[in-house]
């Protein structure tokens, strides 16, 4: 079960891959997105985005700043102004 995840900044497409789960630092609390999540849109506060490639693996962290996340039929898209990691 894989979630299609894209991280886009104005300068480039940072990530486009299949992952297990992504934890987003939403403005109203952290939330984990798995495959098959309901359509959803939220703004993001500055903080680490945790990417779990496998179910039990250690997460990879990407610090993002100024952005929002959208979950649609084709997976999760995070638009951020700055991303590093």
């Amino acid at each position, binding site marked *: 079960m894989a979630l299609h995840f894209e991280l*886009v*900044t*104005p*300068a*480039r*497409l940072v990530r486009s891959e299949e992952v297990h789960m992504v934890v987003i630092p*939403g*403005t*109203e609390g952290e939330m984990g997105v798995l495959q098959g999540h*309901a*359509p*959803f*849109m*939220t*703004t993001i506060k500055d903080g680490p985005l945790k990417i779990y490639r496998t179910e039990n693996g250690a997460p990879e962290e990407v610090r993002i700043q*100024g952005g*929002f996340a*959208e979950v*649609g*039929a084709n997976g999760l*898209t995070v*638009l951020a*102004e700055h991303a590093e990691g």
Partner: protein
Amino acid sequence: MASLKELKGRINSVKSTQKITKAKQMVAAAKLRKAQAAAEAGRPYAQRLAEVMASLSSKITVTDNSPRLLAGTGANSVHLLVVANSDKGLAGAFNSNIVKAALTAARRLEAEGKSVLFYLIGRKGRAVISRNYPKAILQSFDTTDVRTPGFDEAEKIADELVKLYEDGRFDVAHLFFSKFKNALTQEPTEQQIIPVPAPKAASAKTDAGAVVEYEPDEEEILAALLPRYLKTQIFGALLENMASEQGASMTAMDNATRNAGDLIKALTIQYNRSRQAAITTELVEIIAGAEAL
């Protein structure tokens, strides 16, 4: 008639000019490739953002309580013209075309009885606009100390614009830049940026039927997205401008190199002719001298 030495000097000076224009042409070609790649890389973000904006604004009706960036100030009297130029010349008519478009728009707006202010990005074009509208330059943004204007610059410009807007300095803002079509053609373009024009809802098919949850609600998200959308628009314009500048520069320098080649050819022919004439005169003199003996 110019002496041989003078001609030789001129040929040499044109030759060194040609070297410069050729070097500039090659630099522009390399930079153009880079600028095009940057413009390409920025496209997914702009596209996504426009889609989201479209689907959001189709769900919200603009009222007096809507964010002012979307609804406008309610007035339509002071127009701000944001003119994006480059810092360097040697790019043919690139800068003057943008300035010309801005000045035409300024005259049109003034004829409609509106007042016009300018916000200038880049060093070129400042002189022309300040000569035509000496008191209308509100602010200018300096890009001389950065090599390639990037998202950070776009961010700063957008922040300054939003601040000026919130201080009530202007009602409508238009952005002037050069749209990159290909290396030969660049199109001076005018685009309204404030109030933010709602993107066309072309993406209606992407979320047809899906009930999307919003967190926080639509209006708050929209309010958060508007400044970002503005930044992206400015960033896109800066990228287009950069590619256009390099394209225009490449074309202009190609022409200059060719003209210099023609000039060198003409001067060389003239040089050889006068050299031959000098030899002939000398021979005639010697023969005449020998005959006189």
